[in-house]
C-alpha cells in the first residue's frame, strides 16, 4: 500500500504541472472525451496497442486527463490491496456444503435413474466423487441422522419422523422390505456387485446420490436384515452399509 500517494493536506489542490500552459490548462483539449473514457483501462494495462498510442499522444497535451489518470492509478494500486483484505477464503468445508446443496437440488429436479443405469454408472460415478469429502459428508450425515433417530425414539416413541438424508429423494418404506444405504469401493466390479446382491437377496432401488450413495432393498423379517448387514459390511468392496433410518421402526 505504500505505493499510493497520500495527500497530506485536506483537499489539496493539484500541484501545477510544469508543462502546464497557464490559461487553458484546466480545459480539456479537442478529442478529449473518447480518450478520457479509456483512461481506466490505460491505468489497468489492458488497452490495445492502437488505443495505447492514442491515449499517450493525448496525455502529452491534456492536463485534465493527466490528473484523471492519477486518480485511476491510485485506484489501480489500492483496489487489489483492499481485495486481499476481504475475508473470503475457499475451503473444503465450503466446497462440501456446495456439494450438499447440489445433491439437495438434484434430488428435487432429476428423476431417479433406472436400475440398468445404476449398474452402468456405479464404478465411474464413485471414481469421480472426491473421497475425503464424500466420506466426511456421509459420516457426518449418518451421525446426525442417528442422533435424531435416537432422540425421536426416546422422546416420541409413537411419532416417528422419517429421515433419509443420504438418499437422492426420501421415499416411503416399501412393505416387506428393509432398506440399506450403501457405498461401494470404487474398484468393485459388476460381477462382485451381482454376487453380493444375490447373496443378500437384495436389489438396488435408488442412487447414486451425488455422494455416491445407493439404496439397497432387502427382504425384511426373520432377523434377515442384521445378517444381510453383516454380510454387506464384511465385504471388501463395501465401504459403508447403514440401515435407512426411516425403516428402523415398522
Amino acid at each position, binding site marked *: 500500500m505504500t505505493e499510493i500517494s497520500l495527500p497530506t493536506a485536506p*483537499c489539496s489542490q493539484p500541484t501545477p504541472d510544469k508543462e502546464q500552459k497557464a490559461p487553458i490548462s484546466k480545459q480539456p483539449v479537442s478529442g478529449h472525451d473518447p480518450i478520457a473514457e479509456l483512461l481506466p483501462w490505460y491505468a489497468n494495462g489492458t488497452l490495445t496497442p492502437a488505443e495505447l498510442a492514442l491515449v499517450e499522444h493525448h496525455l502529452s497535451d491534456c492536463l485534465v486527463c493527466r490528473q484523471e489518470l492519477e486518480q*485511476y492509478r491510485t*485506484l489501480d494500486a*489500492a483496489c487489489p490491496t483492499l481485495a486481499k483484505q476481504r475475508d473470503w477464503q475457499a475451503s473444503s468445508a465450503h466446497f462440501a456444503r456446495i456439494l450438499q446443496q*447440489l445433491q439437495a437440488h438434484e434430488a428435487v429436479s432429476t428423476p431417479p435413474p433406472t436400475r440398468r443405469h445404476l449398474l452402468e454408472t456405479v464404478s465411474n460415478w464413485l471414481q469421480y466423487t472426491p473421497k475425503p469429502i464424500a466420506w466426511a459428508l456421509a459420516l457426518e450425515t449418518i451421525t446426525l441422522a442417528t442422533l435424531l433417530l435416537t432422540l425421536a425414539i426416546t422422546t416420541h416413541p409413537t411419532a416417528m419422523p422419517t429421515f433419509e438424508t443420504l438418499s437422492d429423494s426420501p421415499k416411503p418404506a416399501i412393505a416387506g422390505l428393509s432398506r440399506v444405504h450403501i457405498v461401494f469401493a470404487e474398484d468393485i466390479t459388476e460381477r462382485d456387485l451381482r454376487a453380493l446382491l444375490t447373496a443378500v437377496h437384495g436389489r438396488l432401488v435408488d442412487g447414486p446420490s451425488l455422494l455416491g450413495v445407493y439404496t439397497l432393498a432387502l427382504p425384511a423379517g426373520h432377523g434377515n436384515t442384521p445378517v444381510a448387514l453383516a454380510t454387506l459390511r464384511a465385504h471388501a468392496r463395501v465401504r459403508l452399509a447403514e440401515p435407512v433410518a426411516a425403516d428402523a421402526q415398522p
Partner: protein
Amino acid sequence: MMGIAEQTQDPSIDVAGNGHEDLMLMRRIADRDTQAFETLYYGYAPRIGKFLMALLKYRELADEAMNDTMLTVWQNAGRFDPGQGRLASWLFGIAHNKGLKLLERQRRHQREETLDTVSGDYGQHEAEAFSAHVDVDNPERIVLGWELGDNLLWALEQLTCEHRAVLELTFTEHCTYQEIALITGCPVNTVKTRMFHARKKLTELLALRGYAVGS
C-alpha cells in the same frame, strides 16, 4: 468480441490459461465430474468470493451468491463457449448476475419488513441497506491502519453496487472494458459511463473527508 482478452498483462489472471483447457474442464463438469468441479472451485472461488464481497459487502450474502453461482455453473457447464470469452469472464458474469439478484431480493425483503429506507449513494454507514446483516465483526470494517485506505474503503462502500462492480473488475481483476460489458451485460458505453461516475463520486466522497485522490 474478446479479441483483446489475450492482452491481459497479469498472468495470474488466467487460472486454466487457455481456452482449450477451460473447455475440457467445463466438459468434465458437464459430465458430472465432481473432481473437475473441485478444481474449478479452488481455481476461481477465491477471486469470485472477493468480488462478491466487494459487491455485496457482507460475508453471509457473498456466501449465498457464491453458492448460487456454483450451482448455476454445475447445471450449465455444457454451455460454456470459449469463443465468447475467457472462462473467468463467464464465471464472473454468472456471479455478477447472482449477486445483483440476491441484492434485489434482499431489498424487496427489507422493504416488505419496512425496516429501513435505502438512502441515496451518499448515505452514511447507518444508511446501509442491509442492517439485518450488519455484523459488528465484519472483516471489511477492519481499520487498515492507513488513513486513505480506510477512507477509500468507506467511500467505495457508499457507491452503488453497479459502480463497485465496474471498479472491482477493472482494478482488481484487470478486465478489459469489453470483458466488463460481457460480465455485466451492459453496452461498452454504459461501462465507460459507470466508471466515469464512479470515479467522480469517489472523489466527491473523499473530498467530504478531506482527501483528494491521486493528484
